[in-house]
């Protein structure tokens, strides 16, 4: 997954307050540590804004992993073969695992799991907009692996060096597993491309629908990015949105050639002078629409997530009651 929403602030984020004198000293010391590339650990002193920024970023990231299970889970029961079904099951299970690594990392900053989930379920917290797009065909599952997870990897590899230790360590685990996600996606698409005309057309249609939303995953242009400056200073963000997006486009053009699909951008051309591919303008109106709740599946995704949580409430309560009873018996 999926770190685009990082740059989307929460409405209830309080404006930063100037630190008192002794805190100013601590803050300067903290900044120096970050500048020296040191890691910050959970119980270390940290500025309120650093803590808040990380809670927002890590929890948005966690929510994205969890909501990201929905569009793919949609196809588990309809995968075209047992092989593809077991692969997809493993992948969706990984997404759940990634969400859990990240929730655990966010909790080290002093926020509870319940608070994080409540923020998601009430719509206060964001998750990556990419999951507000539908998966109407089997080719969508391959394209999610190839392009969505491919974009996620670009975003996530630099986070393995994030200044906050628990987040960096979670990202190392995630990146190790994410490569399987991208490769199984490419493999699935490659199989379809060697099939019938109808199968090739299905892959092309999916690529056409996902290409632009995937480019949006890298977040707004650097000049419009709200959190970038302090995030860079604190070693939370290491490479800018535009730089990552460019890297992704350059890598993907070659992969698309191997696959034999076109990318739906007439402006996409090699620029020898820059040594990069130029590409067309991104429709930021669509991006902000989806971020603000008006994408094709926003309501459906959130409703499914809330329902799963509510339906599981009795299980959580029963397990807790059982554990209390066992403990009481052991004490007696």
């Amino acid at each position, binding site marked *: 997954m999926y770190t685009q929403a990082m740059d989307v602030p929460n409405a209830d984020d309080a404006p930063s307050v100037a630190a008192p004198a002794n805190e100013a000293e601590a803050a300067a010391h903290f900044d120096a540590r970050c500048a020296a590339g040191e890691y910050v*650990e959970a*119980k*270390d*002193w940290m500025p309120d804004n650093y803590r808040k920024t990380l809670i927002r970023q890590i929890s948005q990231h966690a929510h994205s992993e969890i909501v990201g299970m929905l569009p793919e889970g949609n196809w588990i029961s309809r995968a075209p073969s047992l092989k593809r079904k077991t692969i997809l099951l*493993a992948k969706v*299970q*990984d997404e759940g*695992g990634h969400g*859990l*690594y990240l929730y*655990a*990392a966010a*909790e080290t900053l002093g926020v*509870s*799991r*319940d*608070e994080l989930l409540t923020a998601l379920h009430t719509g206060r917290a964001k998750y990556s907009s990419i999951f507000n797009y539908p998966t109407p065909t089997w080719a969508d599952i391959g394209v999610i692996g190839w392009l969505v997870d491919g974009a996620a990897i670009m975003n996530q590899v630099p986070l393995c060096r994030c200044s906050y230790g628990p987040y960096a*360590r*979670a990202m190392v*685990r995630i990146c190790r*597993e994410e490569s399987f996600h991208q490769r199984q996606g490419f493999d699935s698409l490659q199989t379809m491309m060697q099939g019938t005309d109808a199968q090739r057309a299905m892959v092309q249609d999916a690529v056409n629908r996902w290409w632009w939303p995937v480019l949006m995953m890298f977040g707004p242009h650097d000049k419009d990015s709200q959190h970038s400056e302090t995030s860079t200073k604190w070693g939370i963000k290491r490479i800018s949105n535009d730089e990552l997006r460019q890297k992704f486009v350059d890598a993907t053009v070659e992969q698309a050639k191997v696959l034999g699909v076109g990318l739906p951008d007439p402006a996409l051309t090699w620029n020898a002078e820059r040594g990069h591919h130029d590409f067309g303008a991104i429709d930021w109106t669509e991006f902000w629409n989806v971020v603000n709740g008006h994408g094709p599946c926003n309501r459906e995704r959130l409703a499914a997530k809330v329902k799963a949580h509510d339906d599981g409430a009795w299980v*959580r*309560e029963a*397990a*807790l009651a*059982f*554990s209390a009873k*066992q*403990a009481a018996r052991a004490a007696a």
Partner: protein
Amino acid sequence: MSNEWPLWEVFIRAKAGLDHKHCGSVHAPDATMALQAARDVYTRRQEGVSIWVVRADQIVASDPGDKHEFFDPMQDKIYRHPTFYQLPEEVNHI
């Protein structure tokens, strides 16, 4: 909030011969479920042969604020390191 399952820290031995190493945490109502959750979350690709789970509220940790005072006594005892001793060339490999 009070209904939240308690937090457990997870330690995994990657293979025989290595130490258990902290790798993250899980929420679970009891030790049995904590072990199962830790297995599902942290060892999906044979990352471990043994798991310890410990209630997070049972761990006693040193205070990072006291780090300098707490670990300071070790700093000026360089004679505890082998490199402190200059030996003749012929035996310097010991």
